[in-house]
């Protein structure tokens, strides 16, 4: 039954993608992108990837949309109609699509337990997680311990992207006009959204913290929690105006979160080395290797959460501050 639902969702996904490309109003395109992400999250959930679905829903449907909208406010929202023939690109993608579909017939079918993907390290991870870390969520175990190097790299990519955005857009608008506008922005004058939003913000942040610290036991972890907390603060910024949000969470705190989170992750690795283990081998952190692993996982997940939350919020504020400039 759920597979019929999946067929329906996948078809909707294709329709949404085509609609995104066809529309010339970029606001419509961004809103459809949000729907696309939500459909994608539902598909991920059907395919047993609860952690990924949570991430896609928080990041794709939430943060990405806000960042796109703030970029649209700066860059204009109307796309000019295309000049010239569409035949060449259409032909190219048509031929490529047929080739890829032809190639998929060599792939193992969905859910085939004998597929090559399921033969190498994956069963080992599933088997060894209870023994080495004794935490229920294998995804978190693989993410933070077995493949800690990978995650460290990804965190530094997020860090670098955040620094890049800040360099390109400027940490703060230059010139004497840098004073924050006296007129409060945001939804100050709209009573109902403001009341409801104010009611929701603490719960969103609380849920983010739950996802952060429950990540070892259920779907969740630093990446999701960082995105969810960032969404909560962005909602606050939309309701009360950007200046108010910066008063609550100042830029210095945000930068501290980004740098501190990335450094915390790296520092755990170095501490492991100092205590006689390999880089990011948490077993040496405590007398009991299993407890050491658990401790390491909790600490680096906190680092990931800090870095992601700080990076996404810094990016949002970089775009939002640019809007105040003439």
């Amino acid at each position: 039954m759920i597979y019929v639902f999946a067929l329906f969702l996948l078809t909707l996904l294709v329709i949404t993608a085509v609609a995104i490309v066809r529309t010339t109003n970029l606001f419509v395109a961004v809103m459809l992108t949000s729907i696309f992400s939500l459909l994608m999250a539902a598909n991920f959930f059907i395919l047993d990837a609860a952690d990924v679905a949570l991430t896609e829903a928080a990041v794709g449907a939430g943060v990405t949309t806000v960042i796109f909208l703030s970029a649209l406010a700066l860059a204009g929202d109307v796309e000019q109609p295309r000049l010239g023939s569409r035949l060449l690109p259409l032909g190219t993608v048509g031929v490529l699509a047929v080739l890829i579909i032809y190639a998929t017939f060599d792939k193992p079918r969905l859910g085939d337990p004998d597929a090559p993907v399921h033969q190498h390290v994956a069963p080992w991870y599933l088997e060894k997680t209870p023994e080495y870390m004794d935490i229920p969520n294998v995804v978190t175990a693989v993410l933070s311990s077995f493949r800690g190097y990978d995650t460290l790299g990804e965190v530094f990519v997020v860090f670098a992207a955040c620094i890049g955005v800040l360099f390109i857009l400027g940490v703060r608008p230059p010139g004497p006009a840098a004073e924050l506008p006296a007129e409060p922005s945001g939804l100050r004058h709209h009573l109902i959204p403001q009341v409801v939003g104010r009611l929701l913000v603490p719960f969103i942040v609380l849920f983010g913290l739950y996802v952060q610290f429950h990540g070892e036991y259920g779907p969740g972890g630093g990446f999701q929690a960082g995105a969810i907390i960032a969404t909560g603060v962005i909602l606050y910024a939309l309701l009360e105006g950007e200046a108010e949000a910066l008063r609550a969470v100042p830029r210095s705190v945000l930068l501290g979160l980004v740098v501190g989170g990335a450094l915390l992750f790296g520092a755990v690795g170095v501490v492991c080395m100092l205590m006689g283990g390999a880089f990011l081998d948490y077993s040496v952190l405590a007398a009991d290797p299993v407890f050491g692993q658990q401790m390491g996982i909790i600490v680096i997940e906190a680092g990931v959460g800090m870095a992601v939350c700080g990076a996404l919020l810094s990016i949002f504020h970089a775009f939002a501050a640019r809007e105040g400039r003439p």
Partner: protein
Amino acid sequence: MIDVVLDVISWVLLALGGACVLIGGIGGLRLPNFYTRIHAASLTDTMATLLIFTGMMLQSGFSLPTMKLFAIMLFLLLTGPTATYALANAALLSGMKPDSGVERDRGASGGVQ
């Protein structure tokens, strides 16, 4: 006996909720202008949420998932009407007048220009 009764009630609720979603969807596509369409779409936010979640809570019995479903239902009941209000308010502020119920507006011919 009580199980069968609960099951029947929950399925009736789920079916009614599904019907509400369907009506809301048809209304969103077929009604002539923005304010009438938003009126239809808000049906899915409130009535369908209430019916479907009550049905699902009856299905899951008295357990932790029931509490989670209840929390999600509260969340949706809070945010759905707020989103509808914000949408209508934004339309009003941008100069769209809710004067007549029959006149078609620009976007009515289809979602994508």
